[in-house]
């Protein structure tokens, strides 16, 4: 971080939002530090969007505070020059062109007029800038939403599920863009219900579930504290399980081996190579072997708990909020 301009911290403290009896966000506290990309993770309905909207002053908290550089969003002298937010890609008037849309908010935020052309070019929208947005694809809308967030060249960026509705190519593009923005020294908070979508670009994570904090801190630290596992598919599962728990001098011994519902084994306390070598030495067949990161395990468990009962994997990465509309 040396030499980079430091963006402000985002400070969330005791944040709570109640809708009737439902606590969408429940006594949530965490800090987002400048200069790195922070992943804001949790299953659908965990309260990520509500939290982000409370940070941005769009939703009033029932109690608690959220500040950016020590001030509430509404009290920032030039909010859109400090914070940019991508919350809802479809939030654009269908009759406006991308250029109109950007000029409206550029005028509102008091940003220079040439920012519009600059961003249209940077986000690959120059060709379609004068078409009404009703003709836009999801990817183009997502780019326009990002351009709107970047109008004031903010040092802090909040992105709510920006990968939703993007094809793999679009997601790769988004990753490259966010990496670039972080490399410029900005603070980036990006929410996702799919860990793998952000894993490559985040340094810190904040994991929430049912509105409550589950884990927060540098990804590497959390992964160290929740060690990885190895998932093995083998037709000789019972023999392999026994062999892993017996262990060998060369490959070591497993702390624990769970037999999963689908017949595969989850191995704790051994590296993937050691598991494969041990199986080979014991002449046991291995049909598949997957190393699972600790955080991913944690995350899969969280996602699985929410109604996916028994399936130890995240639900399909569909945009539930878009479907609700």
């Amino acid at each position, binding site marked *: 971080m040396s030499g980079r301009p430091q963006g402000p911290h985002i400070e969330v403290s005791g944040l709570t939002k109640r809708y009737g009896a439902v606590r969408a966000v429940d006594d949530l506290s965490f800090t987002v530090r400048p200069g790195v990309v922070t992943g804001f993770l949790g299953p659908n309905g965990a309260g990520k969007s509500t939290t982000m*909207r409370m940070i*941005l002053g*769009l939703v009033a908290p029932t109690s608690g505070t959220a500040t950016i550089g020590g001030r509430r969003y*509404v009290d920032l002298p030039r*909010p*859109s020059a400090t914070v940019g937010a991508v919350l809802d890609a479809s939030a654009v*008037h269908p009759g406006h062109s991308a250029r109109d849309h950007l000029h409206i*908010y550029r*005028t509102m935020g008091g940003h220079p007029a040439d920012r519009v052309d600059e961003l249209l070019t940077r986000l690959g929208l120059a060709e379609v800038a004068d078409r009404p947005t009703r003709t836009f694809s999801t990817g183009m809308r997502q780019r326009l939403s990002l351009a709107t967030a970047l109008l004031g060249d903010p040092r802090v960026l909040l992105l709510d599920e920006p990968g939703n509705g993007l094809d793999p190519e679009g997601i790769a593009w988004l990753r490259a863009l966010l990496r670039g923005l972080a490399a410029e020294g900005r603070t980036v908070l990006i929410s996702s219900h799919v860990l793998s979508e952000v894993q490559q670009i985040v340094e810190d994570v904040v994991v929430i579930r049912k509105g409550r904090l589950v884990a927060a801190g540098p990804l590497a630290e959390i992964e160290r504290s929740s060690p990885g596992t190895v998932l093995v598919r083998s037709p000789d599962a019972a023999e392999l399980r026994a062999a892993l728990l017996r262990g060998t001098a060369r490959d070591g011994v497993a702390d624990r081996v769970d037999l999963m519902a689908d017949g595969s084994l989850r191995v704790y306390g051994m590296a993937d190579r050691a598991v494969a070598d041990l199986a080979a030495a014991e002449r046991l067949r291995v049909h598949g072997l997957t190393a699972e990161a600790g955080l991913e395990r944690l995350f899969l468990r969280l996602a699985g708990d929410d109604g996916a009962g028994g399936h130890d994997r995240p639900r399909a990465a569909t945009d539930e909020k878009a479907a609700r509309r």
Partner: protein
Amino acid sequence: MNALVKAEFRRLSATRLPLWALLAAVVLGGGMVGAMTLVGPENFDPPAPGLDTEAGVRSVLGMLSFTVFLPAALGTLAMTSEYRHRTATHTFLHAPRRRRVLTAKLVAYGVAGLLYGLVLTGTAAAAFFGGVAVRGVTPGMASGEVLGLLVRPAVAMAVYTLLGVAAGALIRHQVAALAVVVGYLYAGEYLLMMIPGVKLLYPLLPGGATASLTGFSYVADTMAAELATGPVPLLSPVGGALLLAGYALVAAFVAVLVPMRRDVH
């Protein structure tokens, strides 16, 4: 603040809406008044006093006040379109002091409503003077007086635009807001009149205030005729104008205060 007003003008002019509104103003102003002038109130069914009388001129020009529903409907779009297309998120992110956003919308829509009113009455004046010249009728009112009479509906259009903005800020659902505003202006006020006693309040309702401002008391007169009661006394034009301005103020106040605490999803 200035930036927000500019942004609202930019937002307004980015769609085809102003074009349609101008077209409507020309059709309802020049078109309607022109047609009625050419036909002549004495040829209406039932016949009305001719244009060579003051009552005849008033009845033709007064028809303009029946079109207040249009600027009122356009005014409701100021906020409801933000919620319908969910651009309220961007708007309140770029201008988190929502009071200022609403104030900027009131200013922009007030100006737009006044422009609408001026086009409406301007084309109406042109059509009226053109029409009487073609027919060789000497109007029963001096030209200066006719123009003075036409300024009033122009102002009324601006006020109704503001009433629309306020209604849209209160009722965020676009179709619901449109239905309430147009429904009230078309039927609501007349239905209210049927309740015994309520008609005494008519001069104090927006419609009554508009009638006293524009000097066109068609509704009150019809009501008196149909209900076989004495005519409902309207306020003076200045009183009507003040009352209407009061409604606009209350509407603006409501529009500015209501969205403050509402969550934007």
